[in-house]
C-alpha cells in the first residue's frame, strides 16, 4: 500500500514551502532578536555577543522606559475606548441604513484602511498643527481665543490613531450585527420596549463579544503603531515602537532596542492571548 502512504503526505507537501519560509525568515530572525537583547553593547566596542542582563536591567530600572511604556499603554487604552465609542454606534447605524446608501457609507468608512497610513497621518498633521486648519477654523469661529497646538501631544496621537483604527472596531461589530436576528429586535419592539431599552437589553448583550474582539484588535494595533505616533508625536513624545526605532537607527544601541522590541512583543502577546481566553470563556455560549 505505497499509494496510501503517499496520499497522507499530500498536505505536508503542499504546506512545506510556506512552513519552511516562515521558520527560516520569520521565526529564526525573531529568535535572533531575542538573543540580541541579551548581548552587550558599548559606544566604541559595538555589539559584543556575551550574555548579559544589562539591557533588561536598564529597561526596568530606568524611569524613562517605564514612562514610555505607560504612555504606550495609556494611548492604546484611550484609542480603544474612543474607537468603541464611535465605532459601535456607527456600525449599528450603518446596519440599519437603507441599502441605497449603505454601500457608499461603507466605502467611505472602510476605504481609508487601504490608504497609506502616512498619507492619513499627514492629513491629521495639517489639521492639528498650531497653525493648522482645525485651529484656524476654531479661532475664526471665536471658539478659541488663541491657537492650541495638538501636534506633539498625546491628544493629537490619540485623535489620529482613533481615525486609523476605528474602522477595525466597526468591522468587528459589523460582523456581530450580521449574525444578529432582526426578528428578536422586532419582537422586543412589539412587546412595547422603547428604542433605547431595545438597544441596551437586546442588541448590546449580543454584540458585546464583537466589541470585545474589536477592542483586542484595536488595542494591539494601537500599541504597535509606528508611523502615526512618529509623525504626530514627533521626536520627543515617544511610544514603545518609536523608542525601539530610535535605539536602532539613531543611538545604534541594537541590544537595548531589541530588548525594547521583545518586551513590546511579549507584553502584547500576553495581553491578546489573555483577553481572548477571557472572552472565549465568558462568552462561550454566545459564540456557539
Amino acid at each position, binding site marked *: 500500500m505505497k499509494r496510501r502512504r503517499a496520499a497522507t503526505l499530500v498536505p505536508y507537501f*503542499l504546506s512545506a514551502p510556506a512552513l519552511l519560509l516562515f521558520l527560516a525568515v520569520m521565526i529564526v530572525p525573531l529568535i535572533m532578536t531575542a538573543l540580541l537583547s541579551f548581548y552587550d553593547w558599548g559606544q566604541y566596542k559595538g555589539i559584543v555577543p556575551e550574555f548579559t542582563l544589562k539591557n533588561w536591567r536598564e529597561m526596568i530600572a530606568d524611569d524613562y522606559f517605564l514612562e514610555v511604556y505607560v504612555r504606550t499603554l495609556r494611548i492604546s487604552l484611550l484609542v480603544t475606548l474612543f474607537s468603541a465609542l464611535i465605532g459601535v454606534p456607527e456600525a449599528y447605524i450603518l446596519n440599519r441604513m437603507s441599502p441605497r446608501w449603505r454601500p457608499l*457609507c461603507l466605502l467611505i468608512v472602510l476605504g481609508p484602511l487601504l490608504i*497609506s497610513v502616512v498619507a492619513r497621518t499627514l492629513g491629521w498633521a495639517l*489639521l492639528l498643527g498650531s497653525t493648522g486648519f482645525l485651529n484656524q477654523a476654531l479661532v475664526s469661529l471665536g471658539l478659541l481665543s488663541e491657537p492650541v497646538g495638538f501636534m506633539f501631544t498625546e491628544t493629537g496621537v490619540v485623535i489620529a490613531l482613533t481615525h486609523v483604527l476605528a474602522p477595525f472596531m466597526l468591522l468587528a461589530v459589523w460582523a456581530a450585527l450580521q449574525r444578529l436576528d432582526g426578528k428578536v429586535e422586532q419582537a422586543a419592539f412589539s412587546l412595547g420596549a422603547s428604542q433605547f431599552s431595545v438597544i441596551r437589553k437586546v442588541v448590546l448583550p449580543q454584540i458585546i463579544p464583537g466589541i470585545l474582539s474589536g477592542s483586542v484588535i484595536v488595542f494591539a494595533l494601537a500599541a504597535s503603531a*509606528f508611523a502615526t505616533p512618529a509623525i504626530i508625536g514627533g521626536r520627543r513624545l515617544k511610544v514603545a515602537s518609536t523608542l525601539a526605532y530610535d535605539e536602532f537607527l539613531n543611538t545604534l544601541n541594537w541590544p537595548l532596542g531589541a530588548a525594547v522590541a521583545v518586551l513590546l512583543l511579549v507584553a502584547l502577546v500576553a495581553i491578546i492571548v489573555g483577553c481572548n481566553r477571557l472572552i472565549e470563556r465568558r462568552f462561550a455560549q454566545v459564540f456557539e
Partner: protein
Amino acid sequence: MSKRGELGRNGPLALAFNGLFLAFMLAPILVVCVVAFTPEGYLSLPRRGLSLRWFRAILDYPEFITAFRDSVWLGALSSTIAIGFAVPAALAIARYRFAGRETLLSLMMSPLMIPHVVLGIAFLRFFTQIGLTGNFFGLVIGHVIIVTPFALRLVLAASTGMDQRIEHAAASLGAEPFTVFRRVTLPLILPGVVSGWVLAFITSFDEVSMTVFIASPATNTLPVRLFLYIQDNIDPLVCSISTVLIVLMAVLMVVLDRVYGLDRLFVGTGKG
C-alpha cells in the same frame, strides 16, 4: 404600535452621528488632497484658485519617482510570491485534517499580530547577519512575510467555499492532480486569488513600520521616503504625492469592492 414605523430606520440623531463620523473619516484625506492644489509656495488652502504646480514639482524629485517605481515592483513581486506560498498552503488547510494544521495556520497569520516594528528589527538583525542589507531582495522577503496573511485569508475562504466534489468529478474523468488544479481548482478560486493578490499588493505598497528598518538610500519605498521627508518638514509637495497615492488606492478600492466586497475583505485583518 407607533414604534413599528420607526423600526429599521435611523432617526435624525443617528443620521447626524453618521454624518459626523463620515466627516471624521474623510477630513484628513480631503485636507491633503485640497492642499495639494494650492498655488502658494507654503501650506495653505487654495484660496486663489487651483494650481497643479505641486504636482509638476514631483517631477523635480527623481528620488520620489524611483521610490514609486520600486514600491510598485516590490508590491507586485512580494504579492506574487506570497500567493505562490499561500495557494498550496490554503488548499492543504482547507482540504485536509493533518497534524500541525492549526499551527501552520497560526504561524502564517501571525504577522498580523506581531508589531511590524518588531518584525523590522528582526529582519534588520537577520539580514545584517547573513549579509543581505540594503538589498532589494531583502525587502521582498520581508514584505512576503507581511502580506502572506492577507493572501492566505482570501485564498483560504475561496478554497473552503468550493465544492470538493467538482475536483473529484474532474479526477474521475481522467485528470491528473495538477491538471485538476490548473483546469478546475484554480479557475474556481480565482476571485479569491485575485482579491488576495490586490490586498497583498496594497498592504505591501503602504507598509512603513517594518520597511523603514530595512530600506536603504539605494532601495527605498515611496511611503518610507514620504515618512522620512515628513519627519523633517511638511510642505505642499508631500500633499501632492499623497494625493497621487490616495487616488491610486481609491481606484484599486473600487475594483476590489466590485470584485469582492469591502466588508468581506477586511474581517479579521489588521494594519496600522
